């Protein structure tokens, strides 16, 4: 097709997609029965119904599954460019529809999760999102790992004890800043909540976690869909090799799990000295360190970014090695659930 036709088709389909999303949102918010006659809307409804719907922020998830459209130079002229983040069953259905509309003159690519390059993880983020700078006022900075929920409480942020609780030195109720102090975060302007739970790190014992929670203050919102969706927590890491993480210092990095159930690893912690940990996961960075100072608290996921595996607590940058606590163990200790 001609370039002008490709542009017109793209504009028409974008309008259709937008209308479809509005229909889906209306369907979910008002809990009304939607008469689905348009195949595009049917695909969107199918996508949305495959997700958990009872919280409005989750509607943002839809955006990661609806294809992005553009125009593409094809061998035979111009066509529709279709970019999909995840090749799920429902998104395939939608892509088939779009390719049909382009009379097969389309260039389809699965591009994987896309992370914004507009801001740095050290910036101030409101709403909050995973992978950004966070910390207690007496700590330099670490990483906001993920959002969790305990019965009867507001949403809480999970990160490392040595990030949120200054390695046992903080008191419950202390303010937590985003960004952390190394990234110019200051109380009260950058306070996002207060320290609500700490799993103590005990010198001379085999510790199984370095983790703490911060309950978000009224009016501090979190974006559960940014920069990608965490769908669940993997209970068993046995068959997982390729992983990724989002951290305050190194951003998104990729690695491979090298060791499981690592006992007796000693981590040097400035306040507490040499601390022994059991039950860790060892990850080797691909081509560069998987984590560096400032990345503690970051959630390790599989490469798709959908399945949460572990929390970074330390590493050896020169050897590209990082160590993490399995997230399922951490959540069990805290009696918390991943807030998705």
């Amino acid at each position, binding site marked *: 097709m001609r370039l002008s036709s490709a542009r017109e088709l793209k504009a028409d389909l974008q309008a259709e997609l937008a209308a479809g999303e509005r229909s889906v949102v209306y369907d979910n918010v008002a809990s009304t029965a939607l008469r689905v006659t348009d195949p595009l809307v049917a695909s969107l409804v199918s996508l949305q119904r495959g997700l958990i719907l009872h919280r409005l922020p989750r509607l943002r998830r839809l955006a990661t599954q609806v294809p992005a459209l553009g125009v593409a130079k094809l061998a035979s002229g111009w066509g529709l460019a279709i970019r999909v983040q995840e090749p799920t069953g429902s998104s395939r259905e939608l892509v088939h529809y779009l390719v049909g509309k382009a009379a097969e003159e389309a260039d389809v690519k699965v591009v994987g999760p896309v992370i914004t390059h507009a801001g740095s993880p050290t910036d101030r983020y409101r709403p909050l999102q995973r992978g950004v700078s966070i910390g207690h006022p007496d700590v330099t900075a670490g990483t906001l790992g993920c959002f969790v929920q305990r019965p009867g409480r507001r949403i809480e942020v999970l990160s490392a004890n040595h990030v949120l609780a200054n390695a046992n030195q903080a008191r419950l109720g202390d303010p937590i800043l985003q960004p952390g102090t190394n990234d110019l975060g200051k109380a009260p302007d950058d306070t996002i909540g207060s320290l609500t739970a700490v799993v103590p790190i005990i010198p001379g014992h085999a510790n199984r976690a370095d983790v703490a929670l911060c309950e978000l203050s009224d009016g501090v919102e979190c974006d559960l869909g940014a920069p990608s969706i965490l769908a669940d927590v993997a209970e068993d890491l046995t068959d997982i090799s390729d992983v990724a993480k989002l951290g305050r210092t190194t951003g998104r990095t990729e690695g491979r799990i090298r060791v*499981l159930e690592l006992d007796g*690893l000693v981590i*040097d912690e400035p306040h507490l000295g040499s601390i022994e940990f059991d039950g860790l996961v060892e990850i080797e960075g691909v081509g560069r360190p998987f984590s560096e100072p400032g990345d503690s608290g970051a959630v390790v996921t599989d490469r798709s970014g959908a399945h949460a595996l572990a929390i970074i607590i330390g590493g050896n940058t020169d050897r590209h090695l990082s160590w993490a606590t399995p997230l399922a163990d951490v959540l069990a200790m805290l009696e918390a659930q991943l807030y998705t």
Partner: protein
Amino acid sequence: MATQQRAREAKNQVKEFLRGVAEVNGVGITRVDEGWAVRVNLLSALPARKVLPSAIDGVPVEARIVGPATAHAG
């Protein structure tokens, strides 16, 4: 070929064998080409008097110098 469970059992034996050895910085299990092995993390080479077996009950034992670990606050 060692199963994951056999590797866990061998790991416990290796931990006991290396208890108190200052050069050791963790013992875990790792995937190898065929099955599982015990992985010994070291700060530096083991002293000559402490010879690590290459296998325990058919489970391979491998060692790697990983150096010291530090907490990753910024």
